[in-house]
């Protein structure tokens, strides 16, 4: 009898394993955020097995575009809205309205009907400044984009390569929108003189500042605040002129066999539970959650964010990157 029970149990376990559905998610969310978010997902859906391809924004974007004839991903989660607009234009996305999709602010989702992508949070440019190194070199704290091109910061600044990094792109795009294209490129030329290297990922300039290998890293707010918590001498500066920003957004990938679990995942990804988790990391989320703004962000984060024309950014992304590569790629840190 005991044996039969055991055998039955074994069969059940095997069957359960066979039923456990698996989805492949492409994401550019930070490595230290995903485990926390997934804990929340697993509590609700322990039976869905989620696999990730995680890389910098540019890489995930390029990879999805490259796979367009034979898409591998089921879901895109937390990827730059500019990239999702490119995917939409290329016909790679399948419209899907998640259960809580209606709650997401109109300006934080795709303008089409029905919306194809839904934003979950906004992330914005922040300078990671190493205060110890600043003091060693008797330099003032930079407070604005205008400060960064002052000659005393020569060789002290790192920034991400916009071709591979979403943070890099939103910063370049913000500079071009704030100053206009002509003055924007002139500014970037001057900034280039102060840059010691362009990195592959948007986090790395902040991490380099954290170890003193660089004094100022142009990065994004969350990264700098996180590193300060870890004990690194990092002050996060949100530039006076306003921060470039982008949405991290989700969408369903168009492919022959769309798995129901992919939709379940997207439902969860804009649910209040998930939104609460995002609010631990970001000051601005897809819809208000009532969670207090994480420490270190400006009191009114939406005022810090520039007026961002996503359409313009998406349409001009390729041209901007081509021009940028032509001008500055000689200084770029080798990718991988």
């Amino acid at each position, binding site marked *: 009898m005991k044996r039969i029970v055991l055998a039955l149990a074994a069969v059940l376990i095997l069957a359960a394993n066979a039923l456990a559905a698996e989805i*492949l998610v492409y994401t550019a969310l930070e*490595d*230290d955020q995903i*485990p926390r978010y997934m804990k929340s997902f697993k509590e609700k859906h322990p039976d869905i097995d989620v*696999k*990730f*391809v*995680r*890389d*910098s924004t*540019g*890489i995930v974007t*390029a*990879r999805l*575009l*490259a796979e367009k004839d*034979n898409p591998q991903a089921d879901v895109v989660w937390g990827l730059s809205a500019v990239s999702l607009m490119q995917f939409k234009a290329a016909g790679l996305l399948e419209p899907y309205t998640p259960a809580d999709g209606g709650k997401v602010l109109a300006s934080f989702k795709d303008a089409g009907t029905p919306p194809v992508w839904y934003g979950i949070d906004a992330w914005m440019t922040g300078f990671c400044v190493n205060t*110890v190194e600043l003091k060693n070199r008797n330099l003032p704290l930079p407070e604005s984009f205008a400060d960064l091109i002052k000659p005393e910061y020569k060789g002290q600044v790192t920034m991400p*390569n916009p*071709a*591979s990094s979403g943070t890099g792109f939103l910063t370049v795009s913000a500079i071009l929108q704030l100053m206009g294209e002509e003055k924007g490129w002139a500014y970037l030329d001057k900034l280039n003189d102060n840059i*010691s*290297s362009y*990195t*592959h*990922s948007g*986090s*790395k*300039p*902040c*991490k*380099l500042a*954290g*170890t*003193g*290998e*660089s004094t100022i890293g142009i990065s994004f707010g969350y990264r700098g605040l996180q590193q300060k918590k*870890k*004990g*690194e*001498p990092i002050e996060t500066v949100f530039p006076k002129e306003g921060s470039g920003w982008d949405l991290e957004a989700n969408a369903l990938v168009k492919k022959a066999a769309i798995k129901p679990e992919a939709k379940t995942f997207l439902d969860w990804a804009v649910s209040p539970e998930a939104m609460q988790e995002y609010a631990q990391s970001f000051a601005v989320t897809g819809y208000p959650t009532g969670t207090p703004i994480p420490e270190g962000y400006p009191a009114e984060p939406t005022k810090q964010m520039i007026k961002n024309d996503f359409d313009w950014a998406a349409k001009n992304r390729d041209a901007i990157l081509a021009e940028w*590569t*032509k001008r500055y*790629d*000689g*200084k*770029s*840190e*080798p*990718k*991988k």
Partner: protein
Amino acid sequence: MTGHAAPPVPDQSDWREPLFSERRLRALLLLGVVLWLGLVVVLPLGQLLAKSLYDGSGTFVGLANFRAYFANPALSRSLANSLRVALWTTALAVPLGFAFAYGLTRTAIPGKGFFRGLAMAPLFAPTLLYGITLIYLFGRKGLVTTGFFGFASRTLGIDAGWDIGLYGPVGIIISETIFTFPQAMLILSIALRTTDARLYEAARSLGASPPRIFFTVTLPGVKYGLLSAVFVCFILSFTDFGAPKVVGGQYNVLATDIYKQVIGQQNFAMGATVGVVLLFPTLLAFFLDRLAQRRQAALIVARAVPLPPCETALVNRLYFAFCSLIALLLLIFLGTALLASLVRVWPYDLSLSLRHFRFGDMGGGGYAALGNSVAMAGLSAILGTAATFGSAYLVEKTRGASALRQTAYFLSMAPLALPGMVIGLAYIFFFNAPAWQVAGVRLPSPVHWLYGTMGLLVLSNVVHFYSVCFLTATTALKQLDKEFEAVSESMAVPFYRTFWRVTVPVCLPAVLEIAQFLFVNAMATVSAVIFLYSADLPLASVAVANMDDAGDTAPAAAMSVCIVAVSILVRLLFGAAAARLSRRSQRWMAP
């Protein structure tokens, strides 16, 4: 017509020969070797070359990609940069390797085993680690740059900080020199060991001075080894990407361009183009080396007498000092790598902790990746040893079928000329294509299922390190008399039994050496597998690259330390196993 009735010569194409004769079976197996190498070396490479002639959307554009490449100054400068790095590295690593090897083979210095073991240590780490360690030593907040965090100036009252300007060519060349030094040292030790003492006797009895002997006997005696060392150092530093990626700063080289094009921008056509540009100097070096080695074969002396170490006490002391200095530098280097993985917040909180070894919050896959790497290295070692030793046996010990044998030999040596990145790229193109166009007909690809699996990772490693293993096996097999084959044939023992009962046991040390070489290299390699690993199968060495990309330098160092630790452990286990096994299988060699 009387008397000399010549015995009938068996006709090669005798129809009475049984269908499955041993000769046929061997020829069939050799054909299998040729076909398999054709499938995993020639076809993928052909695909890469073809890809460089098409644009991104699949239109034939001839040499337009190459024109675009050389018209773009940012890209074409990389070719000059790569050449410069490779030349400097070769000029540094070969003399250092030569002096070290000379100390180990021709002098009577103590501690040779220690020196040799330590000099091999750099082979165990991904090249990224050299870059990372250099940052901790010579970066802006490095130990040397800051004069041990001002310790020197506080205690000694001197400003001992020294900024070497690490980022750029300086950092790359130092890293590559550390990386290629053991390889040069190994090749030159073998060359210096295989010499004929009688030449030295003759020179001395003719009254030649030691410098004269060095230039007229020693150097000419090892010129082919020297040439090999030069080529190996040149190719390795020309094609490596790990070190330039970490300490290259704004100094682009070909290998990093390939990554930017393929992984950064998914521009496969330009990636293939740069891959071909990378391949040309390597192929040239390969053919020059092969040409030289062929001439050497004619120079080998039949009855050479081994040369005992016979330098003067002064020379011994000098070499001991030199080897100690190199060993000390390597120890500092390895120690810094370990320190980098242990310090809590470099350089602001120097307390030690194991927190960088918790990879939970990091990209790259953590210990699962390490597990995958061990599995991949183990499988590469087992399958690679079987494949290389088996094919070396067939090529070396088969009579007749010379066209097949020569083809198999050439194809076995060809991977030596292929940089890992070229193999990785070629494999993406070849194995990821869901269908092949053959003469205008669309055929579903029979190898597509391998893509994204452990099988492809193992295959890429086996092919990447194929030639060195094949050469090791061939050398071991050459020491075995062909009479074994002849005797077993005349006694009607099938060759596979002789192979299993005689050949393999006798060659056991070489077999173990091959397996160990494959394991250690598969653990540390990044170049080929970084294109081929999938989300389900993260690898430790790739994790090092990814963590370094994200700026998580200390965890990247920690993962490298794990890789080195596994490789050293495996090497020790192999050493113990080899000692046990060879006591049993090598008894015949004892006098």
